């Protein structure tokens, strides 16, 4: 009884917060405060009620990350009338997201469909003729919605394939990644920095349900797509100069790595959750940092026109550097921990696949480093007015950095049962003649 009730409760708290925030629409400060309280209450409720939930095989890290990401995303956003809708919609998405993560069967699908519908409506409302390609993104989100619908009425393996398509839209997998990129680049206000955590985390959480039932041929295709996707996204990230696209493609590259490991081993491990969660959170942090720049130098600021912020904005510089390190997979942050965890515990992986994943990991050192270096170092622009981080921005970014650090230092034992490594080693030795 309690197990069935808790998901609804977890979904209702943020949704109720959204309604409360909406009632004080006229006062932006109050809307923001209410939204933040809603996120905090959501986080508290997760901590309090997680014990009543069945812990999925890949752990329950995602549950904690969602309200946290919502909180940091809202907190970092400056006050303004134009931002009220995005704060409230953050809570709405959080509510549907919590429901989709925790509820089973039909109610879980219902929440996910509601979430996709919300995002589609938001993208439709914010569509501009300058970005015609965002229609593709909307189309792919609709495809995800249709996939969810089919899965509710069809029998396996058709239903599994349909869910796989939805998962590939949420946790982006080339060629269904445009929906994710659209949300990262086209959603208004603080929403990109939240949705970048929300969608992949839900997508990965749903993977264990289908990996066991998907035909081997389909898994083979997923493996190929994931490997090509990791490389393709890394190449695309290297070619971009717009920060959101660099981050979008960069995170896509890492998500493809998670897809590859999941498809290779046939199950979604806690290490995979850690990688997806940490990559999402690091990307979210970098999007927040970019939001800081946009707040100061207008929305359409060209990142190549800014340099030398390290001297003028030292607090921002330190946090951005740390986030950059985390995003490119350098220890001791969570991305590295997740990546290493997957590398060490996936003995069935092929040499070629490992080589490509390592290449994608290495490429992050270029595009993330280039981006961070462009903003922080080089000659300082005396004609620009510099304001270092305001307290809410500082707290928000600091929370993200600390959580990423914690994810690296306090690994999967927190959210998944420990696995004796000797069994894995024995298994590895059996497979000592590696597949090519």
């Amino acid at each position, binding site marked *: 009884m309690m197990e069935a009730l808790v998901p609804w409760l977890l979904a209702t708290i943020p949704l109720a917060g959204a309604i409360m925030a909406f009632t004080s629409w006229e006062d932006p400060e109050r809307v923001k405060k209410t939204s933040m309280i809603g996120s905090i209450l959501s986080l508290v409720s997760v901590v309090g009620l997680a014990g009543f939930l069945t812990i999925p095989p890949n752990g329950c890290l995602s549950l904690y990350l969602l309200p946290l990401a919502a909180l940091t995303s809202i907190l970092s956003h400056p006050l303004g009338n134009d931002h009220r809708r995005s704060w409230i919609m953050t809570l709405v998405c959080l509510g549907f997201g919590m429901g989709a993560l925790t509820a089973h069967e039909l109610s879980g699908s219902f929440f996910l469909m509601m979430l996709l519908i919300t995002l589609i409506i938001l993208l439709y409302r914010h569509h501009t003729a300058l970005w015609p*390609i965002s229609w593709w993104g909307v189309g792919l989100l609709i495809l995800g919605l249709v996939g969810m619908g089919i899965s509710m009425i069809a029998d396996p393996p058709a239903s599994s394939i349909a869910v796989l398509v939805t998962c590939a839209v949420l946790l982006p997998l080339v060629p269904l990644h*445009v929906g994710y*990129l659209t949300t990262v*680049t086209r959603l208004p206000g603080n929403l990109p920095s939240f949705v970048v955590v929300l969608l992949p985390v839900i997508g990965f959480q749903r993977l264990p349900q289908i990996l066991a039932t998907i035909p081997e041929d389909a898994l083979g295709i997923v493996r190929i797509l994931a490997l090509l996707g990791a490389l*393709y996204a890394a*190449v*695309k990230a*290297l*070619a*971009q100069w*717009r920060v959101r*696209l660099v981050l*979008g493609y960069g995170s896509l590259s890492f998500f493809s790595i998670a897809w590859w490991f999941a498809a290779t081993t046939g199950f979604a491990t*806690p290490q995979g959750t850690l990688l997806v969660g940490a990559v999402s959170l690091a990307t979210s942090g970098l999007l927040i940092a970019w939001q800081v720049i946009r707040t100061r130098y207008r929305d359409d600021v060209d990142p190549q026109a800014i340099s030398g912020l*390290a001297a003028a904005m030292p607090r921002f510089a330190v946090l951005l550097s740390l986030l950059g*390190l985390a995003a490119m997979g*350098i*220890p*001791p942050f969570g991305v590295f*921990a997740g990546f*290493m*965890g997957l*590398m*060490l*515990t996936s*003995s069935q992986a092929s*040499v070629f696949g*490992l*080589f490509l994943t*390592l*290449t994608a*990991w*290495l490429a992050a*050192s270029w595009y993330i*480093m280039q981006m961070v*270096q462009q903003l*922080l*170092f*080089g*000659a*300082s622009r005396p004609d620009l007015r510099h304001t270092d981080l305001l307290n809410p921005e500082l707290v928000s970014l600091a929370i993200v950095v600390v959580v990423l650090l914690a994810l*690296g*230092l306090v*690994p*999967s*034992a927190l959210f998944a049962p*420990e*696995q*004796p*490594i*000797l069994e*894995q*080693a*024995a298994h*590895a*030795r059996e497979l*000592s*003649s*590696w597949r*090519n």
Partner: protein
Amino acid sequence: MLPSLTLSVPLFLLLASGIAMFGVDLPRFRREKLAAFPVGLAFLGSLLTLYLVTEQGPIVIRFYNTDSAASLIIPLGFYVDRLSVVMMTLITAVSMLIYIYSTTYMYQDGHARRYLSLICLTDFVLICMVSSSNLMMLFLFWQLLSYLLYLLAHNHTHAGTLAGAFKTFTILRIADTAFLAGIVLAFQLYGTLEFYDLFTRAAEMPVLLSLWPGVEVSGTTAVTFLLFIGAMGKSAQFPLHLWLPGSLFAPTPVHAMLHAGIINAGGFLINRLAPLFGMSSTTLHIAFVIGTLTAVLGASMMLVQSDIKKTLGFSTIGQMGYMIMECGLGAFSLAVFHLIAHGLFKGTVFLYCGNVIHKTRQDPHFPHTDHAIADEPAFSRLTWSTGFATTLFIPLLILLVTHGVLRIPLLESQGTVIILFFIWITSSQAILTLTRLRAVASWKVSATMLVTLLFVVFTYLFAVESFTAFLYPNPEEVASYFKAADLPDWLFDLLILGATGLTVLGWYYLYLRAHGHSVWTPPWIEGLRIRLYPLLMNRLYADESYRAIGLSAKQLIHRIDKLERGWSR
């Protein structure tokens, strides 16, 4: 007490970093000077640990459960044996000197505190790296070091500095990736990253890996080869050496630290994993080839550089080549001895090179050039005859006698013979240079040189033997490494004959040239000499090649990006 003492060494450095970085500015650089005390205490702690480890054996501290997969991610632990503690002592000693030097050197710099803090943080990372209890922790700090090297470039507003720092970071990351692949492979094959367990399992379970049908390599070769690439990056081995000359613009104390401490990481890694490397002759041979190539190229490029920092930089590359070559010959302890000696020497030279530049600016006649050579008559036949004997044959005799006196088993391993030849060539080259520079090769001077050589060689070999016995108390272990590194007989003979021939021919050439005789050389050699000079002066155009590769890659990436009709249209 022992664990606390061991832990106090890195913690003192971390504390120093914190003192330098945080808090308000104090007058007269008091905060920066205050931070020097923990740095000094770290050195004292290392000395004490050195004594205790020598007396009581290795110290093991683990903050993780070795049987837990979940704890594998960041398995923090310390394993301090003689190798670690020697490195700790070297690092903290050099760091202390550099820190004290830096407080004055960076006095007027606006970001001196950040710089000093980063110096201490780098020392902390280095100490943690050399005292890691497992490969994962070692790799963790290894990577942090790559990033710290980027930050230590310091003046990031200067375009050249920034480009050099970025190049350093990216090249080191390539090597780091190979290192990571080695770790993953080691874990997949042997199920552990704990040093001792890894060595035991690798010895007990020989594994063959099939790269493609018909081509198989042993597990240890694959693992050590990947780890060796990691070592090549940090120790600036050809072709991953480009980052070292590229870091030219960093503050001079950073160079001292880089050349005295950080660059030794590769040698340390190979020594730490000596039992594993000792199981793979193939990797040792590769190390020998790469090391020799780097030594030759580094030394050659050093000779034709016009910039003091670049000259010293290429000298370091050459020395690191020697060190890796020694590892490739199985002389692991000699490599450590070499890196300590080189570290202390190069650190001193770098800290002093600012003075040389300063003096040069003040005194146009500095450095003094010896113009007397051109005016002096050519050496007499007797002078050259004695020189020939004293610099070519007697040094070899001295080396053979010293080996005999110290009971170094010369004929039991190829490595010892090659190293003997190497010392012979370098010592005769050193005496020859002195003879030519001063043009006073009298019996008295020659005798003095030979006595000095005897003293140096005896002391050096005695110290090396003692150090080897200290690091590897089991002589069988040392012999097994030499054995593993044995080259095919024909190659060994060829090397010895080649080295002898080159030395004698070189002498003959110099002798005739000094007498004003024209020396016939095949035209292709003359042509090669002319072509080699600009090639070496321009550092084999490696920077240009690197830039061209980067540009081509960029163009390709943008072409691919444009091909795909997507967001970046």
